[in-house]
């Protein structure tokens, strides 16, 4: 079972504790064999890092860095020039594609364009269908009235015929 002092044991070994904190750890270590053993293990493993000796860095590093800095500056400059050139090209293309006012701008709107626009409107189409329905209704009424007129005519003729028979 690990003691709670292990959280501060490393700081104690590194001399990073206050005097009071360090005294508390020291007193604990005198009494705790496990922690003393663990402190030894911490020290030995830390010391083993010495095997990771590293060779010296390349001596001509400064020259290489300057070369990279110059390369990067050239790349940034090239990108900037390319971006400006691309923007100008796009502007020129768009400018050429837009028709000039004195040549192609129409003075009057074609009539069929207005019809096409109105027919493409959903509300207008619905109104027109309702109008057609109204026309059918009117036509039906006319037919009925014609039948009634014919019937009345027949009735009149019948009356006239019976009157004529009566007089004969």
């Amino acid at each position, binding site marked *: 079972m690990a003691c709670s002092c292990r959280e501060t044991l*490393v700081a104690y070994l590194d001399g*990073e504790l206050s005097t009071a904190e360090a005294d508390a750890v020291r007193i604990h270590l005198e009494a705790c064999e496990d922690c003393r053993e663990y402190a030894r293990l911490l020290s030995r493993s830390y010391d083993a*890092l010495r*095997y990771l000796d590293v060779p010296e860095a390349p001596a001509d*590093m400064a020259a290489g*860095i300057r070369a990279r800095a110059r390369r990067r500056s050239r790349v940034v400059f090239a990108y900037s020039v390319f971006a400006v050139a691309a923007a100008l090209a796009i502007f020129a293309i768009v400018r050429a594609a837009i028709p000039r006012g004195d040549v192609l701008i129409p003075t009057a709107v074609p009539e069929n364009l207005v019809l096409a626009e109105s027919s493409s409107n959903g509300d207008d189409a619905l109104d027109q269908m309702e109008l057609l329905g109204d026309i059918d209704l009117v036509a039906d009424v006319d037919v009925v009235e014609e039948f009634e007129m014919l019937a009345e005519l027949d009735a009149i003729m019948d009356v006239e015929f019976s009157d004529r028979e009566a007089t004969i």
Partner: protein
Amino acid sequence: MTSERPRGDYLSDPDTQLMVRFAEGDERAFDRIVENFRNQVFGIIHRYVGDWAAAEDCSQEVFLRIYRLKSSYTPTARLSTLVYRITTNLCLNVVRDASKRQAVSLDAPHGPEGPPLGATLEHASAEAPGDALEARERAEMVWKALSRIPDRQRIALILHRFEALSYAEIAQALETNVDAVKALLSRARQSLADALRADLEAGNL
């Protein structure tokens, strides 16, 4: 105990003065800065990645970033603080991203046909040739244990062990506080001790 430097002390720091001179247009001052820090920067990165070529490339990037600060530099701390901060940031970001791209496993070969990461470590050059192989094996054992420690814990441990930075200086480099560094180093040291326990008890180290 941590040794806090008095406020404004960095202005009398020779390296900071070099950076001020470089910002004022003295290109030779930059050469001096590279010369003063190249081994430290290279050493930190090399111990972090375990690869000489990657360490060289990343070290150049550190100094390139310092070079690009030329026109905007205003001293607010010692130059070493800035150098350590850039180095640790690069280690934690660029190197980690590169590792993800290459999907490097610590146990797998480094790259398609390369040697294991630990085997690329140069070490113990002062030892006798007969001991070189043994020293190389020891370096690989230690590297394997170190490389398995989480990134921030590992960089904190490297800064403490090899650069002898105080907890406060490590906190500045990692842009955190001293308590956080205390926790990072405690966990790092415990991980290292647990990883090396068997080899230490067997007398391999």
